[in-house]
């Protein structure tokens, strides 16, 4: 009697054939899914790896078909930094992206709030117009805008034609913020009004603190849009190398360095790196923001 009870329960092997098949099936699925996952991960990361490895090759090796550098030329990065203008491009891109983001956020919030919480005639029309503006390629209005900035205001060769419009709200940011603000229950607003707050105070004191994730997402999107923008600087800043941004500068770098792929890849790494670093610190806001556009919009 005692021997039977003393026998430890066999947890390893499944008891019934059905369970055995089920477990095998689950294992196969796990293997299949994770193999696919690894394959996909390779697809997404190998380009970064090859770019980085090439950036460390010597001039002659970069033209060969080798995949791994023989010598690790960290000096390539020094060369890229020393390229005349490289630090200027950094500075300009930071100004464009930073200042632009601040202006966009500040100017878009009141508009988004009005579209989310006010009721007025023309609200739906305004919303539809905002969405139309969102979908508009910049090339549609570039000719008159360029003539306006360059001939009327003599601001070509600078980034101001790109930054100033951001002080008047950005359609995408307005839309995103609006969707987010609509999820804030009206009871909070009513409570604030009962306390005697006007609309503006309500916005600043009550709504904004609750809208932080939405604002963060919008700020991030706008920052990356400006950071990655190529067409804008190409049109407005190209004639003045002192106003070039990283995207435009990277292209001219390739033009100046032809088949110096090692140097070009080093420059590419330096242009990609900041964005990726910022992402690591702001992951949550980013993913939330992307979700907001897709699911609720």
């Amino acid at each position, binding site marked *: 009697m005692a021997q039977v009870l003393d026998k430890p329960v066999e947890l390893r092997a499944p008891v019934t054939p059905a369970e055995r098949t089920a477990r095998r099936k689950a294992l196969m699925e796990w293997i299949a899914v994770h193999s696919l996952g690894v394959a996909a*991960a390779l697809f*997404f990361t190998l380009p970064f790896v090859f770019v980085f490895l090439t950036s460390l090759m010597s001039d002659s090796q970069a033209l060969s078909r080798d*995949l791994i550098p023989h010598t690790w030329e960290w000096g390539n990065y020094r060369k890229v930094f020393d390229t005349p203008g490289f630090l200027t491009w950094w500075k300009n891109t930071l100004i464009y992206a930073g200042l632009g983001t601040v202006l966009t956020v500040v100017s878009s919030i009141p508009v988004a709030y009005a579209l989310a919480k006010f009721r*007025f005639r023309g609200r739906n029309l305004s*919303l539809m117009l905002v969405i139309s*503006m969102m979908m508009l390629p910049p090339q549609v209005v570039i000719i008159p805008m360029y003539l306006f900035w360059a001939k009327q205001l003599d601001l070509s060769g600078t980034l101001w034609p790109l930054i100033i419009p951001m002080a008047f709200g950005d359609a995408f940011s307005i839309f995103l913020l609006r969707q987010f603000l*609509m999820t804030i229950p009206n009871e909070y607003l009513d409570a604030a009004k009962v306390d005697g707050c006007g609309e503006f105070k309500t916005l600043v004191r009550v709504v904004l603190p609750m809208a932080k994730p939405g604002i963060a997402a919008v700020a991030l999107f706008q920052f990356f849009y400006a950071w990655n923008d*190529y067409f804008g600087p190409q049109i407005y800043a190209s004639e003045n190398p002192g106003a070039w941004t990283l995207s435009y500068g990277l292209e001219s770098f390739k033009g100046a360095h032809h088949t110096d792929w090692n140097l070009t890849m080093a420059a590419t790494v330096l242009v990609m790196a900041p964005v990726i670093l910022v992402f690591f610190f702001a992951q949550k806001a980013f993913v939330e923001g992307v979700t907001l556009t*897709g*699911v609720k919009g």
Partner: protein
Amino acid sequence: MSTVTLAKKRRPPGLAAKQRKQALRTLAFMSPWLIGFAVFFAYPLISTVYFSFMHYDGFKPPTWVGTKNWTYVFKNYPYFWPAMRNTLWLVVVMVSLRVVFGLGVGLLITKIKTATGVFRTLFYLPYLAPPVAATMAFAFLLNPGTGPVNSLLEKVGIPAPGWFNDPTWSKPALTLLALWGIGDLMVIFMAALLDVPQEQYEAAELDGASAWQRFRYVTLPNISPIVMFAVVTGVIQTMQYYTQPLIAGKVASGVIQGAGTQFEPGYPEKSTLTLPQLVYNLGFQRFDYGSACVVALVLFALSMVFTAFLMRRRGGLNLAGD
């Protein structure tokens, strides 16, 4: 009776003032966008229409030429119809592949139970790469002579295509680049997939549905608004496709500007031409502002058609929502 009518006509005191105050307040809150809309959207759009009927090269004052620019662009400009065909190709192939791949990757992520965060981050990273940098990276990787991809393919014995240097492979190469940056669609689909009510899956399983049947009858119907949204925004993005094909063509052709050679749009053989590039070519290389505006209006019309379609279907836009 008459007293009631009279009473209706006489508004309660203070309401007019209150309404005016509300109106002003709305105006104040909306003012940044209102000004922006008038100055940066409405006015330039009217100007673009206006300039499309003028001959203007930036120096001599514009002169009226009626439909001359329109005839030129639609009948005689050798880059217009190739660009339209390329746009069609990109819409049919690139957008659909991106949606399918995005859904696939999103699905994959939801099934990965180990180190999900790591996988998700890795899959998302390429989306963050600035377009110029990403295109240059791919132009290097896919270089037919010295790039790693062709080296690997040849080692394995697969015939290596010319990628960005071959007119039949340049758009597929661009599509590969677009699939690499699938992060944004992946996240959207991921969220949508996670939103599908678990009960529906359980019910289907109880009914004996296979994995494929569960996907087809539970997953798809639930996420179809998102799929529709992804398709339409993908089409609209294709209208704006500018930087990647431009940089790919420039880098692959190896043409150094400034050596007296004119830039050849759409290398190789007009296969990477897109409408936005035409606006740049006509406006900022040939300085034919009128014809550039014609192409700009074609872009506008195409974008608006799809935008209207998106708004019709709502896709959860919550226009009336409160």
